[in-house]
Each structure stands twice: as C-alpha cells, then as structure tokens.
C-alpha cells in the first residue's frame, strides 16, 4: 500500500486507477487534487441531494456543486472522526464522513464505485497518521520481513481468538441465565402440581389430598438424595437446631426448634410440641434473608399461607443442607448471597492434549526452522545474508504463541462447561415439557 501512495504523490496527473474517474485539471492550479469523483451531497436543511464533485486534496476533502461551482464542504482530513459505508433509506449506497463536533456528511451516488472511493479516502486519512511529516514522502518502503509477516498473522489470529473468547463468555452467561429461569419454572410447576392435586379432590373432602389421591410420584432426580437417607436413623433426621420461630407477624417470636428431615421440615415449640410439618413436596419456597434467618412458606387454595420465620445462630450450618434438599425452592436474598460465592468455583480439570501439542509448536519458532521446502530453496539463498527471524521477533512470536495456547486452553474449559450446562438444560426442558403436558391433561379432566 505505501508504494502506491508514493507513486501517487510523485505523479498526481496520471490516472493510476483508470476505473476511478479522471483528475479534474481545473483543480490542479492551486492545491494538488489527488482525486475527484462525481457524486451528490445531502443538504440537511433543505433535505435534498445536490449533484457535484467530491475532491480529495492531500490534506482535506472538498465538495463543489456542479451548477454554481461553490464549495459546500471543505474539511481537513485531520478532523475526520469516522468514515463509514452506509445506505440512505436502506437502498442507496453512500459514504458518510463524521467530522469532529459530530457533523455528518452524506455523499451518495458515487460514480465509479463506492468501495473504491471509500478505500482511497480512508487510506489517505490513515496515511496522515502513518506517513512521516513534511513533504519528504519519498521513503523507500522497507520490505516486510518474514518475521513481521508471521507476527502479523499470529497477532491477527490472536485477536480473532480473543473475540471468540468474548462471544463464548457471553454465551456462557446466557446459558446460565437460561438454566436459572428453568429452575424457577420447575419449582413453579411443582406448585402447580400440588394445587392441581388439591383441586382434583372434591371440595367437601376435609382431609389432606394425600389420602384421596395416589401419592405424588417421586421424581427420579430426587432419588439420589433419598438414597442417602439411611445413615440418618429411622425418621431420617438430618439436623436439629434450636431456633427462634415466628409465624407471620414478627411480634410473636418464641423459642423453638427446627428439624430437618429427609422427608421435610418440622417446627417444634420449646416444649417439643409439633407446630407444623412441611412435607418435602408441599413446601413452596424457602427464602434466606440473611445467613441467620430464613422464612418457609406453603401456599393453600382458599386459606391463608402457612409461613414461618426462623432465626437461628446455627443457621449457616443448616442452609447448605437446605440447599441440597430444596435446591430449586430456596431463594437467597441479597444479603445472603455471600453464601453462594463459596460454591462458585467450577471444575477446572483440563485435558492435556494441548500441553503436548504446544511445545512442538514453540520449538518450531525458536529453532528458526521454517519449512524450507525445495521450491523455496532459491529464495532462501537470496536472503541468506539477513536472518529470517530476528531475536526480537522470535521473542514476540513466542509470547504470542504462549498467549494463544493459554487462550485455547481456557476456551476449551469454558466449552466443556457450556456443554455440561447444555446437557442440564436439555434434561430440564424435557422434564418441564412432560410436566406441563401432564398438567394440561389433568386440567382438561377438571373442566
């Protein structure tokens, strides 16, 4: 690219790009006009396009109208903030130039082709930054070495991988939120299930629906925690802690006991009298207000909810148990969410295949053993005097490769995690679909 510029600067009269229109000889007198294209300019105030000529000078852009020949736009290249290819009204291709102070200029119906014009303008704008100052533009462009080329390749692949990592991370976040929503949905479906059971039993039946209906089927997923109930004795008491208990209002607080059973939760008052027993399936939600305070709630149709607030100093030890047992129904409120952070670390096992592959790659560059095939032999002979890779370039390449390796490994870990999450999501969706179907059938029977 720099070569082209040098040529252009040296002999601006020649049309190097014959497909790009002609140089306007009238402009030559004062400023050196590098290029000009017939196009139209959008007048913002009058809301119309005026035909004219867009000319590029070494340091500025100018637009002159065809008819009056007046200069409508003249902006120095250095004040350009952004050049973009856009479409006006989604149909007509145009170039927009954003000037400092956020004035936007629209140039439409560019004659030779929009891309050519865009590339040239952008090139000159960038060259303003990249070319040495002053008129001494005649620098022989140093040929890019092999090393530089390699570094460029590596750098661009690194950038790609970085972008991929960003997207992957975003996707992971989305999957997590999907999972969370699904869990919420699952617990809502549980509630619906219970309410439906209640509705199915005739209204005059005074007892719990359990006696009437077939027992609620135990979900296969829960069987794992059920299986571990043997060590906890006959009743399956998991934990028993002293606690302060209040029902609904906060004024009637009294000491008592919270017992966690495999089959549910029991709340006793100080004299070991059973106040309420929450069956595992009936319980609607547990809210964790703080590490020391939870509230337990069960909804009923046509009756007020049964809700208890339990405060206990031993609560932090119990909450993990509750989390295991009621993982979908438990809800950590803000202050309590510190508890979550402990369990956040994910599996970090990585497969080691990359480790084996990487040193070989690195060896390639450090030994300076580039693939010197038979065809390239002659070329190599010519460049014998200067080393293919300088020390600095080798270092840089090694560095980039190390980074690439790390990135690849981390990407793999993340991918594995996402794979697992996707499996979980599939299972949860299947389960939810089944449950919804079942509920629909039951509801139809009810109506």
């Amino acid at each position, binding site marked *: 690219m720099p070569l082209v510029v040098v040529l252009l600067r040296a002999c601006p009269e020649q049309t190097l790009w014959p497909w790009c229109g002609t140089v306007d000889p009238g402009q030559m007198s004062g400023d050196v006009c590098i290029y000009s294209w017939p196009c139209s300019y959008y007048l913002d105030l009058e809301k119309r396009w005026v035909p004219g000529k867009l000319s590029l000078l070494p340091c500025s852009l100018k637009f002159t109208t065809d008819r009056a020949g007046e200069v409508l736009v003249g902006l120095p290249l250095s004040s350009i*903030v*952004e050049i973009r290819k856009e479409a006006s009204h989604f149909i007509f291709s145009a170039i927009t130039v954003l000037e400092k102070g956020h004035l936007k200029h629209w140039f439409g119906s560019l004659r030779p082709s929009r891309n050519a014009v865009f590339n040239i303008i952008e090139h000159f704008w960038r060259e303003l930054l990249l070319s040495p100052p002053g008129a001494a533009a005649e620098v022989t462009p140093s040929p890019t070495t092999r090393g530089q080329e390699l570094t460029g390749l590596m750098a661009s692949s690194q950038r790609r991988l*970085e972008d991929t*990592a960003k997207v*992957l*991370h975003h996707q992971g976040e989305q999957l997590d939120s999907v999972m969370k929503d699904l869990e919420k949905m699952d617990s809502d479906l549980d509630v619906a299930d219970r309410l439906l059971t209640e509705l199915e039993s005739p209204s005059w039946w005074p007892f719990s629906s359990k006696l009437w209906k077939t027992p609620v089927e135990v979900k296969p997923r829960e069987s794992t925690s059920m299986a571990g109930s043997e060590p906890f004795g006959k009743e399956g008491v998991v934990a028993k802690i002293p606690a302060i208990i209040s029902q609904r209002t906060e004024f009637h607080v009294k000491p008592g006991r919270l017992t966690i059973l495999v089959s549910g939760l029991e709340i006793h008052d100080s004299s070991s009298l059973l106040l309420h027993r929450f069956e595992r399936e009936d319980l609607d939600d547990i809210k964790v207000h703080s590490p020391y305070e939870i509230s337990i709630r069960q909804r009923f149709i046509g009756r007020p909810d049964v809700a208890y607030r339990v405060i206990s100093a031993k609560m932090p030890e119990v909450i993990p148990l509750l989390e295991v047992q009621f993982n979908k129904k438990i809800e950590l409120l803000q202050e309590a969410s510190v508890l979550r952070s402990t369990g956040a670390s994910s599996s970090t096992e990585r497969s080691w295949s990359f480790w084996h592959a990487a040193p070989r790659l690195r060896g390639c560059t450090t030994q300076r053993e580039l693939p010197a095939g038979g065809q390239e032999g002659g070329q190599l002979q010519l460049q014998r005097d200067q080393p293919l890779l300088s020390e600095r370039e080798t270092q840089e390449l090694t560095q980039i490769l190390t980074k690439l390796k790390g990135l690849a490994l981390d990407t793999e870990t993340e991918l594995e995690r996402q794979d697992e999450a996707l499996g979980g999501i599939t299972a949860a969706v299947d389960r939810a679909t089944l449950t919804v179907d079942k509920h629909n059938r039951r509801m139809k029977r009810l109506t």
Partner: protein
Amino acid sequence: MDNAGKEREAVQLMAEAEKRVKASHSFLRGLFGGNTRIEEACEMYTRAANMFKMAKNWSAAGNAFCQAAKLHMQLQSKHDSATSFVDAGNAYKKADPQEAINCLNAAIDIYTDMGRFTIAAKHHITIAEIYETELVDIEKAIAHYEQSADYYKGEESNSSANKCLLKVAAYAAQLEQYQKAIEIYEQVGANTMDNPLLKYSAKDYFFKAALCHFIVDELNAKLALEKYEEMFPAFTDSRECKLLKKLLEAHEEQNSEAYTEAVKEFDSISRLDQWLTTMLLRIKKSIQGDGEGDGDLK
C-alpha cells in the same frame, strides 16, 4: 405489481377495524361483547400492518401496529401491547426514525413495568443505534447505551453491560469527554482481568484508557501506565504497552518522526481501527502543534 392491491386491501382493513372500535364504544355501555370486538379490531390492525409491510409502506405499517398496541393495552394484555409497539418501531425505523424511537420507548415502559429488564435493555440498544446512525445525536445514543448497561448490570448479565459501556466510552472519547471514557475503560479492564476467558482482552481496555490519558496530559499517561502494569502484569508484555512507551518517549522529545515510525510498525502487524486512528492523530497533532502549527493543513 401486486403491491398496490395489497395496500388497498390493507386500507380497507384499517377502516373496518376503526369501525369495530367505534362500535365497541357504543356497545360497551350497555352490553358485554365489547371486548371481543376490540379483539377483532386488534387482529385486523395487525393484519393490515403486515400487508402494508408487504407493500413497503413503512409508516402506514408502523401506524397500524401502533393502533393494535393501544388496543392491546385497553384489553390489559401488556405483553401483546409491548410486542406490537416493538413491531411498530421496527416498521417506522425505515421511514421515520423519531417515531420509531417513540414506539420503542413505549415498549420499554411496558417491559420495565413488567420487570423484563433484559428485553428493555435490548430495545434501549436499538434506540441508541437509531440515534447513532440515523439521527446522529451521539449524546442521546450515549444516554441510551448507559441506561441499557444499567439494566443489564441489574440482571447480572455483565458481558452485555460491558459491551454497552464500551460503546459509551468510545463515543465519549470521540466527543472529547476523556475523563468519562477513562473511567469506563479502567472499570471494564479491572472487571475482565480476573476472568479466565476475558483477561486476554483486558490489555485493549487499558491501552485505550492510557491513550485517553495521553491526549489529556502526558504525565498522567505515564502514571496511568505504571498503575496498569502493576494491576495487570500481563499488560507489560503486550505490544500495546510497548507502543505506548515508545509513543510517550517520542512525545517527550517532540519527535514526530519517531512517533510515526512507532505507529507505523504497530499498524503493519495489526491494522489500527478508526477509533485508534482518530485518537493517535489527536496526539500527533499536539506534537506538531509546537513546531509547524496549522500551516501543515494548508
């Protein structure tokens, strides 16, 4: 062309829908059944809107969707109303950007009311993009991006929030509000540097923050660079950091050739994007400012 026919049909549907709505008003007082009429009208408006869309009459389509949305609101179905408003916004986007923004704002109000902040944030981004490309009101675009970032943060989707914030920072820097841009870049950089996947791009953010510092004041840039290196040791090895050091040196000596050389070398390996070009040009100008002044611009 079939389009004219479609448009005529759509106009007829609109008229009929309007009639239904009027009829429902007179009926509503005495009888039930008003709601079903409104429902019918709603459906007609939507159908008319789709036909206008086929005929590419965007503003008419937008208007029809808008009517449908209002009727949905009357029927208390918020979700449908919001969806219709979004459809209206999308249709208007092609003809009347300002009206599109109004519709999307109405949809956002409904969504935030329902607590669907992620969707609201998404539409804030759409609005910001309209401001960005169609109306060129960058200040407003920034405001919407910020709002969207806030919502995303509230919903714990940090990567989306970061994406919005980065947009804000890029525009703030273009508007020469460097302080704001620096704050955002530093914040995003600090957030991402501990994440195993994102830490590789953290250097970009620190690089940009340092560049913003550089434009304001050279000394600040030096201090900032030291700070970043301390915070994030991997930054030292990056090409961005090396470039910064070279640029700082060149600036100190007021040597614009060295400056250009450094930039050129960087560009030959990975192409500078437009934002970086703009910022680097601004710094370069401050070097030339001493020597040649504006004579350079002719």
